[in-house]
């Protein structure tokens, strides 16, 4: 009984191993995970905005292509996309980022995220009252002006909570970049923990990584929930009364 517990403790919670890996997790892994998440999110937002506009376009072909893009990237296992894009682009001679594995890693995650972000933006934009867009058009504004001055500013407010929620998923999603083989200084939280666990033949470093991920994601999850609830109440107070 006691031996069993001890074995569990040694496998997952070896204090020496945890103490040994934590400095590296925090000084190298954490900044890299956050940087990858931020870059991937920026790519995801930029591409997602374009795709969302396409999902709402009046031309059927544009809608069809953008829908295909979203379905494809949301339908594939992320690990497959990271492999195909992150490894595949340079292998296929499409070395758009030169030899920077880090850039391919961020790009492949950003591409996956853009599909999810496109759906978030589409829902947010569609929630904007159609009549307001028509009103803008009757004043002589172009589709594009209506997009920029009416839909975007109103849509962004609706979209911020789910977008932040998506950012939490990106943080976790960046763990997949270990597949691409990063250099020592480029490694994210998970890569460091994984290398360490292989070297020590012990899982405790992964436990430490897990705790670090939780320290990031759990408070953010609650903050997003509280934020969303507050926006909900705010928008009800602001309802139009005829």
């Amino acid at each position: 009984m006691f031996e069993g517990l001890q074995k569990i403790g040694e496998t997952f919670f070896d204090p020496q191993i945890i103490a040994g890996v934590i400095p590296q997790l925090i000084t190298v892994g954490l900044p890299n995970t956050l940087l990858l998440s931020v870059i991937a999110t920026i790519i995801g937002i930029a591409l997602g905005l374009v795709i969302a506009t396409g999902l709402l376009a009046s031309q059927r072909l544009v809608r069809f292509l953008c829908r295909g893009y979203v379905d494809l990237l949301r339908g594939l296992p992320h690990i497959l996309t990271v492999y195909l894009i992150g490894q595949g682009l340079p292998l296929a001679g499409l070395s758009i980022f030169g030899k920077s594995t880090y850039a391919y890693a961020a790009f492949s995650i950003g591409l996956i995220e853009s599909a999810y972000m496109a759906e978030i933006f589409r829902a947010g934009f569609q929630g904007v009252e159609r009549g307001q867009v028509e009103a803008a058009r009757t004043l002589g504004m172009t589709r594009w002006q209506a997009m920029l001055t009416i839909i975007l500013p109103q849509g962004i407010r609706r979209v911020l909570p789910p977008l932040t929620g998506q950012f939490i998923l990106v943080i976790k999603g960046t763990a997949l970049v270990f597949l691409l083989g990063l250099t020592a200084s480029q490694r994210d939280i998970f890569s460091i923990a994984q290398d360490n666990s292989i070297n020590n033949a012990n899982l405790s470093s992964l436990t430490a990584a897990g705790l670090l991920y939780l320290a990031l994601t759990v408070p953010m999850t609650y903050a997003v929930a509280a934020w969303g609830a507050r926006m909900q109440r705010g928008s009800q107070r602001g309802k139009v009364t005829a």
Partner: protein
Amino acid sequence: MMATATTDVSVRFEAISKSFGPVHVLKDVSASVPRGMTICIIGPSGSGKSTLLRCTNLLERPEHGKIFIDGDDITAPGVNIDKLRVRVGMVFQHFHLFSHLSVIENVALALQKVRKLPKAEAEARAAVQIAAIGLKGFEHRRSSDLSGGQQQRVAIARALAMEPDVMLFDEATSALDPELVKGVLAIMRDLAFAGMTMLVVTHEMRFAREVAGQVIFMDHGQIVETGAPAQMFDAPQTPRLKYFLEQVL
């Protein structure tokens, strides 16, 4: 094709047809609106009144027929819709103010984006319009904090700020509480008497009788009867208009 810029007809519909899928909403509608006249369109729900108005600024595109504004065929291929729309103002039943903007921003936005006025000048003009509809002091309120009647007046100011040749009103008072209707109708009446060309879809028969130069009665996508208000309301010619007036008066 008529292209004379100086004509006393402001809007002319020439055999307009429009369907939504299998529903034939406008059937061969022809009418003209003399410059400076207010025409009221009445008719039962679903008769195509809104659709006719929405065709006038191409929010809907008719499948057949032509629409002329000041002699220009706006249904011709290649017409710049955005330029056209500046000439035609529209007021909706549910106001559709830009909910993230203040009153003055609502009125100034298109002056900046479409007329390309600098912000200060756009807001100065907007302030004049806002004062004209009796909402001086409300410039910096959020539009959603106003009453329905106030919102509709802002919507009218927003359209007028673009200095349109024609104004379209689609049941502008139907969504308002009864006590707020009067203020909006008063503005529309003043506008009509000031010589604006207006197409007004309305259920306010007293307004139509007092302000309209001509009344159009629509039913099932067709103009069934048209004439001066006194004649239409006191001596309707068709059984359908008679029946309709019995229902609403």
